[in-house]
């Protein structure tokens, strides 16, 4: 492209459209790749957490696998480094930085809440009797799924994808109710009548399944769509 000042209005409009479109494609590719990697990491971690929980249960360590969630930001960062290097010159877009900030905020809240819950559980467990502890315990899964649903809905608003907004709101609220009122446990005990050990295994894996689905629909799928759009 050279300096040409004798352009027609149509040519000017063509240049503006072409540049905005090219930039949008480059930004979509990088953003899509980041969402895709994050979605894959969340899905892989949820499977790993479920497997570790299952294996640790026989040793009496119920839910110990959930500590692996702390590794998730590190894994995402390590895997994203390659993409960041490949697209080092791609500019920061408003949409990209808003999506990144939404998930960073979610991560801070989720990890912060997780730490607070662990500390409170540790203190309460030592201070009160098991019967007193039960109603006072902080349940992590309902809050995490609610926060994740909110993150997905905000992502949908930023990316202008209405289906993602609705998925975030509906799935976030439904899964919050499901987890908070332990509806999974109620179904297992009243309908399937599984033995206690299998019930505990099922209950421990249920939040992992929810997060797996959230990771797939909320991050991997929009990431794939953005990558496809940029081709």
């Amino acid at each position, binding site marked *: 492209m050279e300096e040409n000042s004798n352009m027609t209005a149509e040519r000017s409009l063509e240049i503006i459209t072409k540049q905005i479109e090219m930039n949008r494609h480059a930004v979509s590719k990088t953003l899509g790749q980041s969402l895709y990697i994050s979605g894959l990491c969340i899905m892989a971690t949820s499977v790993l957490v479920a497997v570790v929980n299952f294996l640790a249960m026989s040793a009496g360590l119920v839910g110990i696998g959930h500590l692996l969630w702390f590794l998730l930001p590190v894994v995402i960062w390590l895997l994203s480094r390659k993409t960041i290097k490949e697209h080092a010159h791609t500019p920061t877009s408003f949409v990209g*930085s808003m999506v990144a900030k939404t998930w960073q905020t979610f991560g801070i809240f989720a990890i912060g809440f997780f730490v607070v819950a662990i500390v409170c559980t540790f203190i309460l467990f030592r201070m009160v009797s098991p019967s007193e502890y039960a109603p006072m315990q902080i349940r992590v899964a309902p809050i995490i799924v609610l926060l994740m649903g909110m993150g997905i809905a905000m992502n949908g608003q930023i990316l202008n994808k209405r289906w993602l907004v609705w998925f975030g709101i509906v799935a976030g609220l439904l899964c919050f109710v499901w987890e908070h009122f332990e509806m999974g446990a109620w179904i297992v005990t009243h309908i399937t009548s599984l033995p206690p050990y299998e019930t505990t295994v099922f209950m421990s894996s249920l939040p992992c399944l929810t997060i797996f689905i959230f990771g797939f629909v909320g991050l991997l799928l929009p990431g794939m769509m953005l990558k496809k759009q940029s081709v």
Partner: protein
Amino acid sequence: MFPTLDPLLHSELRLAVMSLLMSAEEADFPYIKEQTGATAGNLSVQVDKLSAAGYIEVEKTFKGKKPCTVCRITPTGLKAFEDYVTSLKSYLKV
């Protein structure tokens, strides 16, 4: 009577740079060069002209040990671009 088009923006390369910066928070020199297909020398001259007019901000930083020139649009540039597009519309009768 058609409004006059901003002569600073009514140039292929400068208009391409401004259009690109319109949809990004900021962009570095190699990216602008790649997207516009301009030569480094020509692009540098046009970027300087836009910067001198206060349409864009040019920041020279380092990415690791490598020097890096980052450009971003200013509110003056944004207003000029909006006016340019409005003028274009009257030419095209959009």
